[in-house]
């Protein structure tokens, strides 16, 4: 539990809210302010849950399996599985305005698109870190 980083869970909450905002632009079915607010709160809540599960599950992973491809694979796998499950369960439970799976799929597509985009940025950060390390070493060579 001590490895869990609360800051990451909070970031996940805000990513959820961002997804909610994008969904508001996609789906015009949320007419009232209350509906819109509830959507943002739900998507934020989902983000929080996903963040919590991700932090919890990954805190028990052994360091011995730490490799870039494992990191990105696990990251995307968790995002894919947890997001899909929560989206499907919430849609089934709330029985909201989207009635058919044909309506649901684009929404899941948007959600996963944003999640994968966030992972893409993470991948770029990985390359950036290697470049910064290279620059740091070169600076020391010059000294």
């Amino acid at each position, binding site marked *: 539990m001590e*490895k869990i980083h609360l800051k990451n869970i909070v970031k996940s909450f805000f990513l959820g809210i961002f997804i909610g905002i994008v969904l508001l632009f996609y789906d015009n079915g949320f007419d009232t302010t209350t509906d819109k607010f509830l959507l943002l709160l739900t998507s934020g809540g989902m983000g929080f849950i996903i963040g919590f599960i991700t932090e919890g599950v990954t805190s028990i*992973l052994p360091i011995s399996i730490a490799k870039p491809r494992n990191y990105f694979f696990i990251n995307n796998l968790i995002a894919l599985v947890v997001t899909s499950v929560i989206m499907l369960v919430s849609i089934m439970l709330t029985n909201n305005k989207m009635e058919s799976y044909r309506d649901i799929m684009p929404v899941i597509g948007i959600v996963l698109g944003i999640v994968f985009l966030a992972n893409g940025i993470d991948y770029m950060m990985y390359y950036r*870190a290697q470049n910064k390390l290279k620059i740091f070493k070169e600076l020391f060579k010059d000294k």
Partner: protein
Amino acid sequence: MVQLLCSNKVYEKLKQELSKYQIEIVKDSDLVLVERGYDIPSEKLALVFDAIDYMDVIKILVSGIRKDLYFKKTVTGFSENKFAVIEPKAIIYLEASPDGIMAYTTTHHYSMKETLQYYEGIWIEQGFIRVNKSQMINLLQVKEIIPWFNSRYVLRMNNGAELEVSKMYSKKLRSTLKI
């Protein structure tokens, strides 16, 4: 020699740390360490710090001002009943153990005197950085930085060792490399 202008609590902590490096505390030194909130004396070189960052002041003092004395080019390590002179750049990482600290090079490992905290202070300019409670690494010997979950990193070193950067120290790594 330094003068301290700070609370009693910080004074005691600084006194303890400074004594490790034989830095004397006097009342009329030209160099003053001033805790934020205290008056900065005029016509003296003052280093202002927040109470919580008192260890950073020690690091600056030890790695900068007393550089001539403490910027050791070599250290002595003990391995297989022999003493060896080691250059810091040859050290891949240092690890604290119950018997003292161990220095790992590509081919050997040596036991060394002092503490990790001591080398953290004097080797910061040699590219060394603390990565967790018991290990300190040479950034020049890092082969790859692997991002890991829970704001941690794993560093793959030139000798194949994989060391964890704990979330507490990952911020320091990021700021050092400007990631």
